[in-house]
């Protein structure tokens, strides 16, 4: 079976500094993969390479067997490679409902219509209501996003991504900044993601990674240094060194 998502020998350097070296990974349909790594490991660069924000020096990205390396970000999204953002990127003056309706309209090719009312498309409104209900956001669907809790904003990021009907979903630290009391709701939402969807989660929180992913890859200094089940990660000497080294420099929490 061909992988739904494949990165092969992806490399990127900025002015001689190699921030991604020969990264290769493949994901099957429905897979739950986590990518972890200490600060400065090149996770952001990796996300930017995969989503098409920056071009690699060498290597390929394939989606559903198609080489998308040369495509821009919008084309990748349209083909089903969808991401969420580490820091929520939402419109504070719009409601969650409006965010999702806009997303659905785009999928239907109606997002830029002038001779229509935004709130007049009942098909899009119904679909948006369904997605918001799935994530438990019905109650706040018509409040301004600026006025809802951060945990709910994170859920809305996921709702928007789901409304795009992705084949591959890139979750960039989906629980970052959420108060610990609200993380169970995020985890619950992640557990209920469509079974056929391939999900790549980039995350710091090891507890979350352990509960979510069947397989983990570790990125350090731009290279993949580990691949395997979550249970083996902590035992791997190379991973320990990469993490301890970085924590020794940063002098932060364990």
């Amino acid at each position: 079976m061909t992988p739904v998502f494949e990165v092969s020998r992806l490399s990127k350097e900025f002015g001689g500094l190699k921030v991604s070296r020969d990264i290769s990974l493949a994901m099957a349909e429905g897979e739950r993969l986590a990518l972890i790594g200490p600060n400065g490991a090149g996770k952001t660069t990796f996300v930017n390479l995969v989503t098409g924000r920056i071009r690699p020096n060498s290597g390929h990205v394939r989606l559903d067997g198609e080489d998308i390396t040369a495509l821009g970000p919008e084309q990748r999204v349209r083909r089903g490679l969808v991401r969420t953002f580490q820091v929520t990127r939402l419109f504070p003056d719009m409601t969650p409902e409006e965010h999702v309706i806009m997303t659905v309209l785009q999928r239907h090719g109606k997002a830029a219509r002038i001779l229509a009312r935004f709130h007049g498309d009942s098909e899009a409104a119904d679909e948006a209501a369904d997605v918001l209900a799935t994530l438990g956001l019905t109650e706040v669907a018509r409040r301004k996003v600026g006025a809802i809790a951060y945990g709910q904003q994170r859920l809305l990021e996921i709702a928007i991504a789901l409304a795009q009907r992705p084949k591959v979903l890139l979750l960039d630290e989906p629980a970052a900044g959420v108060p610990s009391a609200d993380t169970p709701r995020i985890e619950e939402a992640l557990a209920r993601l469509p079974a056929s969807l391939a999900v790549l989660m980039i995350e710091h929180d090891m507890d979350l990674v352990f509960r979510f992913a069947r397989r983990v890859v570790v990125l350090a200094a731009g290279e993949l240094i580990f691949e395997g089940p979550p249970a083996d990660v902590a035992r791997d000497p190379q991973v320990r060194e990469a993490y301890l080294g970085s924590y020794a420099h940063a002098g932060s929490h364990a």
Partner: protein
Amino acid sequence: MAEATIRSAAASRPGPLLRDLLGLGLIALGGLAGYLLFPDNLAFLTRLISVALLVLSLDLIVGYCGIASLGQAALYGAGAYTAGIACLNGVTEPFLLVLIGAAAGAMTGLLMGAVMLRAHGLPQLVLSIALVQLLHEAANKASWLTGGSDGLSGMVPAPLFGVFEFDLWGRSAYLFGLGLLLVVFAVLRLVVRSPFGMLCRGLKEDPLRISALGIYAFPVLLKMFVISGAVAGTGGALAAIATQVVGLDSVSFELSANALVMLVLGGIGHLYGALVGTVIFMALEHVVAAANPFHWMTLVGAVLIAIVLFAPRGLSGSLDQLAGLLTRQGGRAGR
């Protein structure tokens, strides 16, 4: 009205449409009040309406797309000159002239957008200035077509509906302009509440988020430039029909800058501010310039500084806040 304040969490949404109708009613009332109260100043009021159309068109670009422009008069001037030239060449039907002006403005908007959207931020602003200066110079040099620095004059538009002459009193011109303004305003309220309008607001706030939805910014923004051009061109055509002269000032940097000042004065991003700002700026200019022709700009400058300091959202924004405080609405949906 009363039940709208009792929390509108999951109710239907008659709100925005009702508010727009109310807004249109207010504009019509204000316009008619101007007609009845200042019968000797109708020429000035008609010019005010044509500039209001220019400022409205600028709000589409600045307020809804987040693109600063100091060259908006290029679109206005294109409408004015084209309508003027058409009128001198035998096309005298006023509605047709407005359509011609709108089309010319839209075409110019397409070109202007295509150039300006290549850049971002300050370079984009500089491009807008360069474009209006270029057009200004072109209008100056092509005197065989535009009359050069003398401008165009001697246009005689046909009577409105074949009945109402564009006479010296300017009654027909004013009511014609007021009608145009109401129609344009109603259409624009629909445009900004369409999916396209929401998308523009999104692009203004966070282009990366919109890109992550798989949407290209360029065609959306270009479309707005075309619409904006049509509105500005309508304003220009109205000026040409009403004053029956078209001068180089209609395609000047100064008019562009004034339009931006009026917009900021009134408040950006909801169209009402454009009207409020135009009325206040031009009324101030009219009254103060009559009293002291040399220092009126000083007063306008002082007023502007006060507004930026004390009401950064513009005058209408502050009114909005005040109304919000008074009515204490719960969850207000998009404007």
